[in-house]
Each structure stands twice: as C-alpha cells, then as structure tokens.
C-alpha cells in the first residue's frame, strides 16, 4: 500500500539522482559520493521490488566503468569479474577504497543470488588482498568462501555519507547466505556431514525468523538422510518453534515419524498439518520493512524450493487416508477418503496440485482405495457406488483391443521414430492403467456383492472384470512384456488372478463346483504355485470327490509353499491389498487334516 508507494518513490528519486550524477564527466573527488549513491540506489531498488535478486547489477558495472573513466582507463570490453580485478588492482586512490569495498559487498550479494560462488570467492580474495597483502586465511577444515567473507574487513562508516544498510549488515547477510547456499549444495550432492556443519553455521548467523526456520528444516532433512531421525525431529521442532508458518517442517516431521514407524504421532502431525494449512497465514507484517537486503532474497535454489514445497491440503488429506488404510484404521481411513472425495467435488483444479512433485496418485486409484476402505468398514453398497464411478469414467478410455507387442520392447533411441514410439508407449501405458482401474472396479464390486451374500451378482461382476481383461492381448504368452509396461501388466495379471479366485469361490458357494474348478485351474495357469488358488483347487477337487488328485495337488502345494510365500517383485497397489487378503484360503487347517487323514488311510491301504 502506502509503504510500497513510498519505497517506489525512494527508488525513483535515487535513480534520478544517479542519472544526474552520470550526466557529468567522472571525476575523482566526486566518485566516493557517486559510488555511495549507487550503493544506496541499488538497495532501494531491491527494497522496492522486494523479490529475489536476479540478473546482473548493471549499476555496479557502470560505477566501475566511471571509476576507470576518472582514472583515464577503459574497460568497456571487460566482463564484470575482470572489471573488478582491474579496478581493485589499479585504482589505489585512498578515498575510493571504502565505497568500492561496500559496492563489492553488494556485488557479492548479486553473485550469491545467481549462485556464482566462485565469483564471490574471487571478489573477496581481491578485496582482502587489496587491504593487506600477504595475509593467509582459510584455516584447515573451514569453508573457504565463508572464511574469505569473514576475513573481509568492513570499511568504517563515514559520518558524511549515510548508508541505507551498513556494509556490516551486508557482510553478516552474505555469511549466512553463503553458508546456507553451500549447505544446500552439499545436501544435494549427498555430502551430508559437510552440509550439516554448513547449515549449522548458517543457523547461527544473522537472519530472519522465516529463514531460520527454513535452515532448521533443511538441517532436519539432512539429519534424516544421514539416518538420524531423532536429531532430525529436534531440528524440525526448532523450525516450528521459530516460525510455525514453516509448515514443510511439519510434513517432514510426519515423514520422519513414518520412517520410525510411529503411526500415531505421524497421523497427529498430518492432522495438525492439515488444520494449519486450512488456516490463512497471518500477514507477514514488518518482515520486509526492516532491511532492503535480506538473506531470503539471496537464497532461492531449486533444492530449497523442493525441500520447502508447501503441501496442498488435499495431498495431506490423502496421506492421512492412505496411512490410516495401511495401518488398518479403517473407520478413520473411510472418513479421510470421503473428505478427500468431497474436496475433489469442490473442484479438481483448485484442490489438487497438478505438478509432478505431488504425493497424490492418479485419482481413480484414490477412488479404488476409498472403495477398499469402505469395504473394510462394511459399507459394501457405498463401495459398489464408488467403484461404479470409476467404471463409468473409464468406459470410453479403454480401447477394444489393447496389444502389448514386442516391437515396443526395444525402442531404438537413435531412430527418428523413437519419439513417436515414446509417445505411443505412454499412450499405451495410459490405456493399460485405465484398463487396470476399470477391472479393479469390477473386482471390488464382485467382492462387495460376495460380502453381501449376492453370489450371482458377484459372479456377474467378476465375469465382467475377466471379459474386460480379455481386451489385453499379450504378444506371445512366453514373452515378457516390455520393461516400461511390465508394472502395469503385472497388476493386470494380479487382478485377473484375484478375479478368477473370487469367481471360483462364488461358484463354490453356488455349488457349481465344476465351473469353480475351471476358474481355479485358470488362475493357477496365470500364477503357478499361488497358494490361495492351489488351496481352493484342492478343496474343489475334494468336494468333487476326486480325492487322489486333491491329495497330489496338496502335496505339491505343501512342498512349494514355504519358499514362495513372500511377495516378490513390486509391491501391489494399495487398492488391491484388501482383495488379496480376501482371496486367502481360510480353511487350510481342516482341509489339511482331512487330506492327511485320507493320505494316511491310503498309505495304510497300500501297505496292507
């Protein structure tokens, strides 16, 4: 508002003053004043824009050229770094040293903001040697840039030429920013101990609350990556103590708790985060009014932005739901999923961040997870409704026939068609995903109907699922699908397996044992050695009174089962986990006993 207006006016007036000064030929007696005006003018510009510093400080360059002009030298063709070198080495006028040094600090700020740490170090080397040559700095183990900045002696402030912000201030800000920036670089490079010490250095420096909280957050992330969750938590807590608006710290804390397996605390943290995100942050009051140059204007690297990514409320809500579901807190999970779905109702664009860094899976998967949660909570009708939504939405997205061919297996990178093939591939992948969601929708519906005791309806749904899955045509049964599509194809196969088992179970329920037998045999073809399918097969054979075959199958199963129990390969999508549990064979104990009895009697028979 008004303050902004005033700042803009200050900037303009300083710009005008500078323009007037530059209208005259450069002269040594006037240069200290001119350089000081440049210094102040740049700071006023920073203050008026109040956003991160970018680009080059043209004013500084012009100032240096004026210095050279006054000394009768020329440097128009030189780069700014060479210009600094020339000026600092050749201009020895005593009165110019202090203003030049101050301007140097500003230049360093601009270079720091641009990430040109080497240039900054070079400049400070020049500044220090200009002052007292032959002084050796950079003790062992200390950061070179930091010690260079610290070794720089701030020129004393003259009473006659007031400064908007003292050079001492700048030095402190530069120190903090340099430590922070380098810490972030090391963090990115994976040198955690170095990053930690640099960030700690930054945390001890002069900075604002906001920045301090950010530094602590980064410290927390660093400690977490070093495998020190407790230290990480301490740092994150400090970040929140300093500035509660630093919500990324809270989400990182939730992640640490997740890592530690403390689900209660993790859920608490997520809940708190969700609440905090819902509240509007208090207007940042006087933060910007204090100083023109601040650390936050200098540090803006992609690493920091990714570390400090503000999570969207919907993401947090989803995380809550997902964690509850994974942890078996079904009632809470249902609640959260329904909340999330109603958030979606309010508008997809506003509620869901569509950038790549989002923690959200694809929306149909969320629907299926919600259905899964509803089913676990016993709300089968609701689950069916949710699945219906998925099925309806994906109806037009799945092609009649979906061929996964060998040709896609090795996309030749060099060929001109590679890009086209890549596009084709992603399209294919998308279709596979849609097919998986649709099939999973039917699968869930089948199980839900089964739970409701409507076996016929369940069989219908399972059959729909299976017929949809027939759209997928794998090129040659033995051939492994392409690397890129393997995950999707595996999921589809799993769905087919679960669907077959489910339908078989329903057939058993209906007393149609032969059809059941067929389904279980099919499922064993898809996934040889699957314990659930094998067990059901045994049971069906038993019921059909084909006891010998049953016993043979059972023996085969009991021999192979212990080794292949664990889930190999990729973990299943969350929405299939429930189905997998439901497909488990429940009566293995009595079946085993009866078969063993049978085998015993058979053995007796033969021995006799």
């Amino acid at each position: 508002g008004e303050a902004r207006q005033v700042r803009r006016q200050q900037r303009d007036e300083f710009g005008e003053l500078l323009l007037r000064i530059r209208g005259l030929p450069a002269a040594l007696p006037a240069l200290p004043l001119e350089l000081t005006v440049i210094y102040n003018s740049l700071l006023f510009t920073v203050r008026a824009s109040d956003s991160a510093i970018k680009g080059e400080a043209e004013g500084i360059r012009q100032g240096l050229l004026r210095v050279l002009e006054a000394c009768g030298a020329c440097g128009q063709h030189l780069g700014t770094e060479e210009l600094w070198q020339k000026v600092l080495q050749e201009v020895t006028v005593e009165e110019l040293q202090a203003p030049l040094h101050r301007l140097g600090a500003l230049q360093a700020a601009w270079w720091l903001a641009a990430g040109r740490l080497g240039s900054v170090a070079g400049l400070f080397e020049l500044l220090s040697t200009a002052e007292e040559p032959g002084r050796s700095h950079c003790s062992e183990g200390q950061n070179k840039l930091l010690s260079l900045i610290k070794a720089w002696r701030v020129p004393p402030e003259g009473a006659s030429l007031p400064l908007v912000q003292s050079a001492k201030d700048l030095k402190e800000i530069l120190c903090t920013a340099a430590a922070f920036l380098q810490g972030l670089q090391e963090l990115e490079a994976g040198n955690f101990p170095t990053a930690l010490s640099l960030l700690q250095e930054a945390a001890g420096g002069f900075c604002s609350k906001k920045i301090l909280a950010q530094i602590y957050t980064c410290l927390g992330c660093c400690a977490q990556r070093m495998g020190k969750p407790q230290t990480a938590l301490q740092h994150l807590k400090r970040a929140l103590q300093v500035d509660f608006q630093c919500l990324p710290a809270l989400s990182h804390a939730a992640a640490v708790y997740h890592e530690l397996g403390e689900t209660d605390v993790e859920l608490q943290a997520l809940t708190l985060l969700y609440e905090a995100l819902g509240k509007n942050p208090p207007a940042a009051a006087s933060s910007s009014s204090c100083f023109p140059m601040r650390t936050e204007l200098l540090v803006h690297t992609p690493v920091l932005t990714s570390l400090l990514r503000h999570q969207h409320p919907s993401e947090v809500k989803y995380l809550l739901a997902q964690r509850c579901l994974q942890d078996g807190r079904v009632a809470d999970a249902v609640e959260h999923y329904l909340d999330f779905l109603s958030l979606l109702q309010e508008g997809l664009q506003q509620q869901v961040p569509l950038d790549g860094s989002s923690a959200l899976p694809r929306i149909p998967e969320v629907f299926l997870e919600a259905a899964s949660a509803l089913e676990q909570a016993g709300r089968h009708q609701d689950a069916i409704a949710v699945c219906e939504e998925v099925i309806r939405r994906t109806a037009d997205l799945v092609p009649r026939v979906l061929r996964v061919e060998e040709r896609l297996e090795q996309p030749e990178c060099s060929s001109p068609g590679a890009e086209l093939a890549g596009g084709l591939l992603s399209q294919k992948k998308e279709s596979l995903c849609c097919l998986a969601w649709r099939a999973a929708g039917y699968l869930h519906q089948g199980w839900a109907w089964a739970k409701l005791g409507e076996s016929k309806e369940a069989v219908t749904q399972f059959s729909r699922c299976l017929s949809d899955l027939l759209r997928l045509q794998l090129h040659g049964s033995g051939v492994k699908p392409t690397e890129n599509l393997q995950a999707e194809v595996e999921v589809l196969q799993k769905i087919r397996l679960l669907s077959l088992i489910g339908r078989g179970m329903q057939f058993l329920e209906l007393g149609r044992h032969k059809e059941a037998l067929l389904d279980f045999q099919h499922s064993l073809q898809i996934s040889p050695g699957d314990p659930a399918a094998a067990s059901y097969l045994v049971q069906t054979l038993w019921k059909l009174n084909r006891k010998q075959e049953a016993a043979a199958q059972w023996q085969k199963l009991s021999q192979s089962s212990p080794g292949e129990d664990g889930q190999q390969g990729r973990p299943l999508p969350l929405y299939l986990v429930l189905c997998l549990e439901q497909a488990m064979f429940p009566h293995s104990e009595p079946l085993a006993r009866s078969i063993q009895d049978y085998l015993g009697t058979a053995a007796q028979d033969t021995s006799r």
Partner: protein
Amino acid sequence: MLLSEQDQLLSYNGEVLVFQLSNPKPAEEADDKTMNLCVRRMAFNRDTKLFVQKSSGLLSMRASHSKIEMVCCSCTTDSRTGIILPCVLMKKKKRNNIKYFVLLLHSSNQFEQSFYFKLDYELKEDIRLFAGPSVLWRHTNKLFYISSNTCVVQSAPVQLSSVVWTGEIVGEGTVVLGIRTACLPETEDADGCSVSDRAIWGSEFFGYAIQTQKMLTGTCFMPHAYSRVVSSVHICKSERWKKQLRISLVAITHKKQLIWFQSGVPKGVCDLPYEKPCSVNPAVTSSNDLLFVVSFASGNSCVVQRRDCLQVASKWQKVKCVLVDDFIGSGSEQLLLLFKDDSNTDVLSTFKITDLGEVNYASGINYKHDVPAAEGLQENGLLTVRALETRLQAGWTSVRELQQHLGLQKRVILESCRALIDLVEERTHVLPNAKEEGLVSLWDDVENPPHSLSKETSLASEVPEHCTEELWQRVVGDSLVVGVKLTESFYLSLSDVSLSLVMDQDFSSISPIIKCQSKIIKLNKAFSSLAVSSSQIEPPPKKIKLDLHSKNDVRKEFPKRSSRIQLDGAKTVTAVTSLSPLLAFHRVCCVVLLHASKQNHQNESLQQSKKITVLCGKILLSLEDISNGRYSVKMLRDNSHCTGSVEDMLAVLAVSVRFSFQIVSSDCTLTRVSSWLQGEMECTPFEECQDNIFCHKAGDVHGTIFNWTLKNPFEGLLTIFCRNLTVLFQCLHSLTRVLPPSCRVKLLRSGSKAVLTEQLALALEKEMLTWKNSLFLKETKAENSLTWGNESGKKINNAPLASLLDTEEGVQQFRKNLQNEREESVRSMNQAINGALYQKMALKIAEAQLSSDMTVWRLS
C-alpha cells in the same frame, strides 16, 4: 522534383519552404553559367493529406568561374520592419576569395540581398543567423559577427571553444552562450562557482551580449561542470527578477542526456536513446505539453516530453529533418518529420505530422517508426484510465460490502456476548458458591512434594561450621569492597544475608559501625550453551511426557527443578563502602560480620527461623597498601580472554549498577549483539567465568561488565554492570545503532524473567501448600479425615481427567466424585479450631501470599 542533399528546408508560417539551387543550363560553358535559387512554398492539405505547392520564386545569379552554395537558412527578424522573414546565407567562392551574402525572402517570393561580406577563409564552425539579419561564426577560437546595420565584421574579445546557443535574452539583446577554457581569477569566491568545479573540468560557460558587448556570468545558465559535456542548448525562458537573470533551459550532452536547468540548477534529467545528440528544439503541442525535439548526428531523432518528469515519448531513425510549426492550422504546433528515403526522393512525399497526441498524419508507408507502442500512448493511456476507473469503482463497492459485512459481524458478536452474559448470569443464579469449594477439593490430589524438598535441604543446614570460605577486599575507585565467599550448603540454609563492617579500634567520638551496602553475587561457572547439540551424536528418543498424576515422577522431578535455581554456583556476599572516610584514619582494622536468618525447614513456620551472626574475619586497611595498589583491580586483556581474579571481577560487579534488558527481535536473529560486544565494545570474557565479559574499550565505558545470554535466537537478556548512568546511556546509545530496527529493548526491574517466573511458580506453589496444610492440620482433623483425603486423591489419579470427560458417563462420574469431595470438604471446614492455631495459620498464609505478590510485582 527530387530533393538533393544541398537543398534546405525551412518552416515558416505553417508552410514548408524548400530552397533549391540549380543550374538551368548544364550543357553550357562554365564561363557563362547562371545559377538559379528556387524557393517553393508547400502547404499541407488536410483533405488530401498531402503537401501541395502554393507558390514559388526564383533568383538567378551569375556564377562565372565561381561556385555558389547555400550555407544555411533560418527565420530572423528584419531590423528595418521588425517582421520575421526567411533568410538564407549564401556562399560564392572564387579562387581564394570567398564572398558571403544574406538573402531575405519576402512574401511575394522576391529575394532581397541584405548585405554581404568577404573573407579569406571558409565559415565552418558554429554559424548562426540571427536578428538583423546578422551572421555569427567561430573561427580559430574567436567569435566574429556581422549585421545588416553595420556591414562590418566585428570580433568579440573572447577565446572560445564552441557556441552552444545564440538568441535573445530579456534586457540583454542578442546573447551568445559559449564555452571557453576556464580563466581563473586568483581570488574568486562568489558567484557560486566552486573552486573544485574548475579544478576538475577546466572549462566554463560564458555569455556575451553582442549589442552591449558585455560578458555575462555563465553560472546563471548552468554549472560550469557541464561545460565539458554540453553540445547544444535551448533557452526556454529568461526573465529578470530583482535585477537577477533567471533562466530556464534544456541542454543536451555527450553523455546521452537531456538536462533541464532552472537558474543554474539541474531540475530534471532524461537519458537519450542515441549517441551524439546535436540539436534541441522546442515544440508546443495541442495538449499543452512542452516537447523537445532532439536530433542526433546519426540522423535519428527523438522527442522528450515534460510532464511529471522528462521522458522520451517517441523516437525515429533515418530522419532527414524535423520541422516544428502549425502545419495543419490547428492553432498549436506539430512536428513534421521528413525521412531519408533512397527509393523515393520526391520532396515531401514521405513525411509524418504528429503532435504525439491526437494529430497524426503520415504519408506513404516507407517511413521508419521505431516505437509503435509509443504511437498509441495517448490512446492507451485513455483506455487504461477507463479500466482503472472501473476497477476503482468495483473496489469501492467491495469495500462497502466488506464494511457492511463487518458491521454485521460486530452485531453478531455483540449479540453473542449478550447471550453469553445472560447465560452466565443464569448459571450463577442456579449454582451459587458451588465453584469455590469444588476448586479447593480439586487441589487436594497433589501429594505433599514440599515435604520431601524441605527434608533434603535441611540436612545440610545442620553443619554450622565452615560457613565461609574466603574473605577478601578490593579498592575500586572511591569504594572499598569486602567480600565473603560462602559455602554452598551453608548459603542454602540462610535468608536475608548481609555483611557489616565494624571498626576494631575504639574511636570514642564516632560510631564503630561503618555504613555499607550488601549484595549477594552469584556466579555461574558453567558455560551458557544455546548452540545446537553436537551433530555427531544421535540423541535418544524423546521421553514420554511427564504425567503429573503419577507420584514417582513428581518426586523425581521436584528436587531437580529447585536445585537448578539455587545450586548453580558459588555465592559471595559483598559489602561496599566509601573508602575516603576510612582513609582518614590512615590505618584501620575492621571486623567483618555476616548476618543472616537461618531457616528451619522442618517446621514451616517463620517464627522459628532464627537470626544468626557469624564473624568472618578482620581486614586491615592502610593508605600505604592502597597507594601501592595492593588491593586495586587488575584486569588485563590477554588475547581473547580477560585475565583477572574472580575477586577482581566480583569487586567490579559489587560497585557497579546493574541493569538488565530483555532484547526481543520480532524478525531477525540477534547475532548483532555479540558481534557488537566483541567488536565495537572490545569485550573479552573472563577466564573463570565465561558468561561475564569485560569491556576494554578506552574511555568512559572501560570496565563495564556485560552478560549476554540468549534464550532463543530471537530473545536474549543483556545485563550491564556499569559505573554510572552516563556509561549506561553511552552503551545503550551504541547498542541501538547496531540492533535491527524491529528490536524491542525492555528494562527488567529485577532479575531475569525466567528466574522470576520460576520463583513465582514456586511462591504460588508454596502458597497453595500453605493453604492446604492449614486446612488439613493434624490438630483439626478428625480421625478419619486422613483416609478420605488420600482416597479422593486416588480417585482422580486413577482416572485421568481427559479421558473421563470424553464420554457422558465419564462426566457423570466426575460430577459425582466432585460432589462427594465437596461434601467432604464442607464437613472438614465445619470442624472447630482453636484460636492460637488459627492465628498462626492466618499469618503463614498472609506471608505466603505476600511473597507471591512481591514476585508478581517484580515480574510486571
């Protein structure tokens, strides 16, 4: 009709005059050739939007063996009639003899030769035509002029390097503004021409009035500093005010700037878009803007507009010339831009008439226009204003809506308040004085922790011997400091500790007791460490939150907390007294006595604490020792530390005035304070006690001791021990320049906030316990009271409050419990008590309340 390079264009009365020199018979011999000077008057037709020729004139000149050229043309006043006429300066070169003549063009298209002059050199530099008509030029740093009146070439008595302007100045007639090398009179002080300017730039402006042949001072035009850069000037206004010449002008400089000066002071600057500006002309357009047309050597032009500030309004490239006149007859001036065009050189075929406002005529399509955006400046501005107006209105409406909404909210809040008050009143009506009793009984569940505390601490107080460790004395300034170091255990059993000095000798006339001030100084030997805990060690998982209801934890936690306040360092009692009265005795021996009241913790009553006096030792003072500096404080700087005994420091602390400041920064970290202490104040920490740092800065502040502890990065406590208030103010003054502006500095009356808060908590606790104890005194209790007291405590312990209140049954049960307790306490209250006991109880309660009130006061 083609326009050649030698042709001259002039605007006159809204018409464009085209002067062309031609050889009508090129085939003829050179001997007898004539040259024709042809003029054509072109006027702009608004309907066809083209220039049409209105009339023309011709002058034939014999040019045998000579070369005739046009030098320049201009509109000048004919001094005979006072009419402004177009005027052309011609040159006729015949071997080494060069004849110049000036032609006037009358409205009848007749040329008239005004005068001529002959020179043996060619006119090249700074040729100007001006009123008379007169001609002015510069040749080898000299200024020459000739007018129709005199017809004699005259020279001005100045050496000059260039002429930047020629024209009329009020009261001075025709004035030439030029630049010359600075000629410095030795004693120059006045006229605002600073010595430094001359020293640096070495050239200056001068004005020369031609009629009066007098020099004008250059400073009323521009500062001399600009003389090196100005290439051309236009004087907008000149007036006499109190005999002072006041001039407003614009100048263009080699530094690519247009600068507007008023009375010699730069008022506005504007950067020009191209290099080497060569001339500047004004134009007054319909929107009453003053425009300056700047031409550049490169053939470019730009227009600078003066509104709030100077700004480039438009610019063009490849411009042949820019004329300013009222070409369309609208009553204000426009710019006529003629572009250099190789393909189409027909005169006035490619042109543009504009006033940068509503008027815009252009011919052809070949002209170059650099900034299409600026073309629609006016239009865009209008649209923007309209849009802004709409937005303003929308904003205004939404503000109104917001106000209404706020009003509504206010009413709702008021309503709610009223409802709440009603509700509250109703409830108090329903449930009178029920709360009070409920509260009392709720407190009961605390298990007497103070008993355990008192037991532990009282053990130590059993040892009356070895109560003092050390006795010392120091002289600081005019004061004598006597210190007694107490053993820790002994100190803990004492309260109200003080020292007194009693003279050993018997001076009958004066009282042996020396007036002195006692202080207790605590030293923290531990380092204050706020730093982030060492990064290498992973701390154990956080402890489970302390459950207040479990007895064990309370017991464990309690002694720890109290010990943190009291057991953290050596205590020294000091006495400070004025030294000089003692020195009057030359040699004096004093007995040092320690007074204290010894507390008896087993019986909480204050009556039983007894006053004790302990003899600590004797001190001997002699003038000789003091002169030798035996007792003086020696603080030296040793690298980064301050050497000096603890006693020295204690002595300084004892004589200093102590001020504590709480420094809170709302936004920035407080690293400045420590850098200020170590940098500007040149402080170093004591070797023995790192918390306290000693100021070595020369001057008044030397010897001041600071203590800086950070509570968190944004809040800290600065304690200053200084000799007097002046020093304090000096320190604070220096500090405020360092602190960020958002910092708040608050003077704490006594003690640090944290310690006081803790004290308050303890005092309140004590008060509460006193209450509780007096309510359940053994003497008043019925035999069963003890049991029910514990029972009720247990009940609440068993069921944590929060979980109880979650369900309705829980609340019911809680209510029932409360009811029971209330009844029980009523029963216990009804018991009789004897008078003496009651008195004692009342006293104790009053004392406890007093102490907590005191702490509250000190905190506020």
